[in-house]
């Protein structure tokens, strides 16, 4: 009897891994994990964006950044940015409040006029203050708006990743984002995007993003942030290097901070 039980256990440890290895990989599950992996409760930091054109000329944008998940129990995020330099956009403010069940609310504060303007949220394909990131790249898109398909495993920077193709489910999502397809390389360990390819409405490769220097900001919830990103526009040759510095968990940030009044302070 003991021999039979022992044999069965040995078989289980032999067969199970083989069986599990052959289970189909759930792309929706992986993209949901990716969506959550970057959802830090609240943090602030300083962002430096370096814009480099094809001729190698550089411009720099510095800004302070605050981000928080709304207290409504969902994963909706509030983001505020305030430009520090260059001088012609200094003190310009940007506020985005994500609404998973509706369009996001976006405002821009223009210090030269002393006014806050509400922006049309569906212009997510537009460039974020002249960089190669679009407004839609500021916050990750909702997982359920795309059809996801696992393609393969691959190494990026010597790390294992899942390669996932995401196609918008409807023309509104496609037109709002400006992307007909995204291919994401999702880190097997932390579920963060190490690389992303963005394809324009015509299906031609538009941009590629490479991320690195991941920081574990909330260890108990396994939430990460990429402190370095490089976005390259493959059609114009222009690129933007994004660096996040002095990142601090900000548990005392309140929803009341993310208001148009704060933009105008």
């Amino acid at each position, binding site marked *: 009897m003991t021999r039979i039980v022992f044999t069965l256990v040995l078989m289980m440890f032999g067969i199970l891994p083989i069986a599990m290895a052959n289970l189909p990989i759930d792309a929706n599950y992986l993209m949901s994990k990716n969506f959550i992996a970057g959802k830090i409760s609240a943090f602030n930091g300083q962002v430096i964006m370096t*814009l480099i*054109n094809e001729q190698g000329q550089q*411009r*720099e944008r510095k800004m302070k950044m605050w981000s928080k998940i709304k207290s409504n129990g969902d994963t909706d995020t509030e983001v505020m940015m305030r430009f520090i*330099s*260059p*001088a*012609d956009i*200094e003190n310009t403010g940007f506020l985005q*409040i994500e*609404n998973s069940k*509706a*369009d996001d*609310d976006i*405002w821009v504060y223009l210090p*030269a*006029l*002393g*006014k806050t*303007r*509400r*922006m*049309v*949220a*569906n*212009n997510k*394909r*537009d*460039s974020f*203050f*002249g*960089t*190669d990131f679009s407004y839609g790249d500021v916050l990750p898109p909702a997982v359920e708006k795309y059809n996801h398909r696992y393609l393969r495993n691959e190494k990026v920077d010597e790390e294992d990743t899942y390669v996932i193709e995401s196609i918008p489910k409807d023309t509104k999502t496609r037109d709002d984002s*400006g992307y007909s397809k995204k291919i994401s390389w999702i880190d097997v360990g932390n579920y963060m995007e190490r690389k992303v390819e963005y394809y324009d409405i015509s299906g031609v490769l538009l941009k590629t993003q490479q991320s690195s220097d991941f920081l574990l900001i909330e260890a108990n919830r396994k939430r990460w942030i990429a402190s370095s990103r490089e976005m390259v526009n493959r059609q114009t040759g*222009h690129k933007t290097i994004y660096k996040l510095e002095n990142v601090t968990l900000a548990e005392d940030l309140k929803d*009341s901070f993310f*208001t*148009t*009044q*704060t933009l*105008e*302070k």
Partner: protein
Amino acid sequence: MSNLSASFLIILVSISFHVRADYEGVDGWVRLDFFSSTRTLDSRFGAGSAEVGLKYYNDISDDMKIRLGGELYQDLRDGETKLKFDETYWQIHSNRIDFIRIGWQKVSWGKTDGLNPTDFFTPHDYTILQPFEEDQRRTIPAIRVDIPVFDAHTLSLVVEPYFIAEKQPFSRDVHVIEQKPDGLRHPQIGARWLSFGDNVDWSISAFHGFLNSPIYEGSDNALYRYYTRLNGFGADIAKNFNRWGFRAETAWLQPDHFNESSIQPYLYSVAGIDHGDNNWNVNFQFVAHYTPNLKDNRNTSSNPITNMATQQNAINFLQLNEIQYGFTSRISNNWLNQTLQGEILMMGYFNPGNTMTRASITYAVSDNDSVTLGGELYTGPNVSFFGQMKSNRTLFVAYRHSL
């Protein structure tokens, strides 16, 4: 600069030098402009200006900051030099109030583009050579308190104890006597209730003070320019519908006293749409100016100066007809990662038809240097808002360097 302003400036400077700041810095800029025409309703060719601006900022703590800003502006044609306060204020905030701001500041109300009926406080300087809205808007000395009332609602209270008049181009061979109100004895006050969020922003506002724009009154041998007391009530809204933004704003302005030669109470409304796509932005607005029971008193006096005054008031305050309709339209685009920006703005009124068109293109040579080329054209009969400015049509070039 008044004694009060000078004293306030000295206090701010003293605090800045004696208090250790969390964060402080200085910015500045130099700007040179050339215009083919002046803004004094004449046909003189060639005008230039030079401007130097400095801003000092001092974040004393998370709850307190000081800003010191000023501009030295010289009209190169006449040699006239002006010192203007930019934002120069002391600001504190706490858990119970968003902020209290005391000093020279921008108080900009209204959500529509360019024309804002509810912008009761902001005077404009239309005699300055630079044509853009941010150049023409002036800061005011005020105390502003913003108080969060409940979730996503704010009450903003403003008191302005020193009156700043709007400056409009005016060229006549008549002696003008200006009468400005005493702001300390009659401070201007305003209140605004704002709501934002959930795809719609709106506000309602009330104002008691003086009209920034001058009213003319004639006597036997002189033209008087004065600023009437009035009460104003306004509302505005901004809401998105999918890819389109809708903006509307309206205000009722009731002068305290009005007679045959001054302006009469009126309703001023602007409503329009905004749409952007792939770096293009298009904005179109409809304007309506309604003066109920308008009495047309132009050219009814035997005194030509009185007739001149009533005509100028009717033109400036769009009271040539009981209802005057108009429009604004703006098309803009940017290229090369927003280093190159172009815009065409057109504003106009009907009955009679008169327009202003401004086209401009700006190139950011670097993060510190930019060049702007542009032009302005005015059309319409002389007895109309834009038509009277036909001699101000101009081509311009501006260079700006940030220090």
